[in-house]
């Protein structure tokens, strides 16, 4: 890549450039913290949050195409990039006044019914506020028809090209198989002994029962809109995990990012879009954050304890630690400027000044495809999330479907053994009655649940955003409960939590804990959310280009 020319594009009227291999978000972050979006209901300022293509914080318009995730787009020469959903700009948006005018939120469930003669006017106004990007311009799209879809029929497909997926691929290649690795990364490294397909898998279906067909169908797309269809006899899911969100006042402010998001914003050249970050968490993930940009970390704050390696590491670098702390609110107009904390054991509230809050307190499994495939899932109380029920071989309840790595909840030091076992099973080795591998704790206590339980009885300040994509506030979830609605499926439909672009990845895990506390029953009884395809928003054009009679089964 060295020596390749920079790509020049327009950002509004300004000329910008991207270095080879840089995403649009990367390129925009070089000019400081990118202000790209406003929230959908209250037009609160929003910035990049997740860094991995799920949230709404970096949606921009590229060449007339709406809702392009800047973190998932590699600019090409002459691109025209524009911001959307704000006027005149995301930094100064006139509609931002809504946030001040309605400090308790807007109740669209009960409000706007009187007077009846104003109905049409209400509809017009509310409709105009909704939506992210404008529809693609007439006549401009598609400038060229989408490329023909990619089709593969293989024996083994591995979904996810991270450490776990590659370990399985290596073992399979060693055993003489030629696996297909489907990876979401924009420019993934090649896989030795296997084929690599850069694609996001969005729909995953096991073979229909009773048809004698034992193949899986995976539909996906390669950015921006090339359809991908894979038929495989065996699928190994190694989709990994992601960093969770956290509930506190102002938790949606620009500058509050997940660790994934912070990594996406820090260039390979050592550039940092922040200098004094507060890192939230106390485990291994915090260690990874310190490895990458410890020089820009002002403090480590943990809702629970902080692990000895992180303590050692932080003291070496002189970074102050605040274990067992309650995060009350993030303040700052636009971007976050400070974080208000208090010790959980009692003591005075204090304020840390900062220019970013990096959430590294909790990794969650990227399990959407497992739910979609109908694999049996179980609640694991330690991390507080659903994981697949696994045989010692790594096979899920769906024959021919295996899971490894973070999505399976296998502990990091057992990953290599897990990969070996899965590969052996896929290659047809007879099961030898092995012991199950060490996985994340099945039984609680879940640290975060205890933390939220304490917070439930305390007064709150600032907006506690329960669902950032749909701008649903935490008190709306509590009100739905107070009105007698029970279970996460009903609360989702009542409040809109989990119905936005991230497909609930950043709101449902915490909503589940909060509801479990409110309803006074364990999280698995509060339920889980049916994962609906596609796992990631997929362009109509990619689906439209799929074959008429796909090689795989048709679903049910």
């Amino acid at each position: 890549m060295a020596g390749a020319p920079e790509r020049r594009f327009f950002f509004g009227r300004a000329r910008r450039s991207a270095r080879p291999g840089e995403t649009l978000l990367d390129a925009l972050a070089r000019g400081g913290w990118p202000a790209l979006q406003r929230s959908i209901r209250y037009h609160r300022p929003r910035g990049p949050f997740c860094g991995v293509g799920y949230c709404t914080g970096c949606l921009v318009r590229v060449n007339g195409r709406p809702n392009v995730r800047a973190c998932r787009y590699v600019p090409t020469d002459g691109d025209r990039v524009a911001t959307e959903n704000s006027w005149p700009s995301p930094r100064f948006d006139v509609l931002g006044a809504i946030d001040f005018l309605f400090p308790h939120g807007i109740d669209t469930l009960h409000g706007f019914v009187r007077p009846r003669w104003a109905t049409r006017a209400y509809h017009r106004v509310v409709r105009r506020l909704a939506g992210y990007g404008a529809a693609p311009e007439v006549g401009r799209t598609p400038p060229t028809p989408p490329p023909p879809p990619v089709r593969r029929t293989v024996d083994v497909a591995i979904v996810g090209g991270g450490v776990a997926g590659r370990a399985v691929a290596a073992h399979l290649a060693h055993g003489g198989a030629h696996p297909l690795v489907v990876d979401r990364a924009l420019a993934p490294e090649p896989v030795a002994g296997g084929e690599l397909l850069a694609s996001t898998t969005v729909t995953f279906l096991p073979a229909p029962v009773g048809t004698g067909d034992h193949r899986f169908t995976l539909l996906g797309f390669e950015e921006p809109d090339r359809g991908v269809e894979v038929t495989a006899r065996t699928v190994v899911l190694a989709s990994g995990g992601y960093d969770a969100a956290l509930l506190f006042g102002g938790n949606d402010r620009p500058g509050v990012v997940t660790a994934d998001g912070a990594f996406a914003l820090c260039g390979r050249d050592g550039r940092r879009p922040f200098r004094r970050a507060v890192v939230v968490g106390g485990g291994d993930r915090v260690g990874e954050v310190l490895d990458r940009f410890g020089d820009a970390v002002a403090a480590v704050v943990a809702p629970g304890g902080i692990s000895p390696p992180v303590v050692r590491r932080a003291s070496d670098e002189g970074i102050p630690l605040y274990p067992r702390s309650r995060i009350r609110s993030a303040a700052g107009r636009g971007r976050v400027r400070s974080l208000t904390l208090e010790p959980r054991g009692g003591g005075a509230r204090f304020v840390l000044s900062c220019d970013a809050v990096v959430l590294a307190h909790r990794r969650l499994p990227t399990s959407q495809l497992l739910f979609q495939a109908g694999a049996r899932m179980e609640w694991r109380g330690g991390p507080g999330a659903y994981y697949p029920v696994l045989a010692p071989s790594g096979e899920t309840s769906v024959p021919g479907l295996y899971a490894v790595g973070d999505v399976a909840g296998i502990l990091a030091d057992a990953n290599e053994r897990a990969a070996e076992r899965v590969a052996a099973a896929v290659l047809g080795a007879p099961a030898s009655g092995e012991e199950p591998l060490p996985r994340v704790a099945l039984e609680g206590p879940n640290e975060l649940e205890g933390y939220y339980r304490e917070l439930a009885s305390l007064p709150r300040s600032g907006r506690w955003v329960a669902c950032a994509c749909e701008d649903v506030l935490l008190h709306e979830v509590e009100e739905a409960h107070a009105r007698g609605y029970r279970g996460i499926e009903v609360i989702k439909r009542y409040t809109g939590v989990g119905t936005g672009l991230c497909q609930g990845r950043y709101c449902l895990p915490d909503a589940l804990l909060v509801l479990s506390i409110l309803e006074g029953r364990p999280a698995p009884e509060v339920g889980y959310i049916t994962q609906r395809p596609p796992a990631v928003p997929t362009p109509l054009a990619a689906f439209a280009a799929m074959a008429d009679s796909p090689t795989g089964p048709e679903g049910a």
Partner: protein
Amino acid sequence: MNGPTRSAYRVIVVGAGIVGLYTAYHLARAGAGPVLVVDRGFLSSGASGRNGGGVRQQWETRATVRLARESVAAYRRFGTEFGYNVWFRQSGYLFVAETEAELARLRGVHELVVSEGLPSEVLDAAAVARRVEGIAPGAVVGGTYLATDGTLYPFPAVWGLYEAVRALGVEVVLGVEVLGVEASAGRVAAVTTRSGRVEAPTVVNAAGGWSGELSGRAGLAVPNVATRHEIFATEPLKPFLDPMVVRASDGLYFSQTMRGEIVGGITLRDGAGVAGGMPSSPRFLREMSRALVRLVPRLGSVGVLRAWSGFYDDTPDGFPVIGEDPRCGGFVHANGFGGHGFMLAPAATLRVARAAMGEPIDLDPALVSPARFLSNDRPPSVERLQLG
């Protein structure tokens, strides 16, 4: 374990969807006595939480047009009556035709609708293009448009009715399946549920996609068939499309919701029956995306956010089943709405409630009574506009 608090009720309504809850509402308002609503799932888990929210008055038969017209009036006042905003936006239903023959059929609908005093219009291709900006040139020859049709949000309607019936003293038990219906001397006596036996002289079958199964369990077979239909929603966009668009040839329909999502589906004739569950299929994602992009090419780069499916409770003649079963006194049907329960419920359930109280109803029994399936006569009429 939750369960009914009493051992006997005046009426048991099976199904807490829009039809069951609205029926309970009318019953409670009429002072019917103790009413129980029982549902196997959670609120809005069935078709009432899965439909596209369309409410139209363009139908091929006068009886349906009238029911729909009455329902439109009910949804207009829903907010003030129930305190929940269903965002019923009357921005029209636009039926589009690809051929002159289809347009001729739509003209027939238009004439009937106009004769009922509704402001339907016939549009040429250019007028259609003005209402659907970016429609592919030459894709349609024309269409019909009724400005007072519209779309709403289904969920708040369920919440509003749920709270209203409970305030009126109706008991709603969720997560309890009805296993059977007991009769004695040709009359309903009780239902058996997973949480016990409950007596009532009247049982209303408002079980939507499961109603055929329930009637069967009561020994009162009806030809209702549950058909799985799929639907999807895209990422929210700024408003660009006002009407609900329906294509007569293949049942493609789509509209843009208040939130900005394009919500739509297409008719695929495949697996019937509730046993298969409610999965989404690659075939639907492909066919729907293809049909939509061909009709409105500019939408190709828009992201599909989620797809889901639900059941239409279809009857052979396209009319719902409303009224007491002639084979068993007190067993009242409120089903067979063929995917249009939401749009017809307010008016249709007024009749259901009357039938449950043993009062006469003003619907032609030859069209809606379950008795029509018991004779060998040909149906007097068929409603074939079972789209969108």
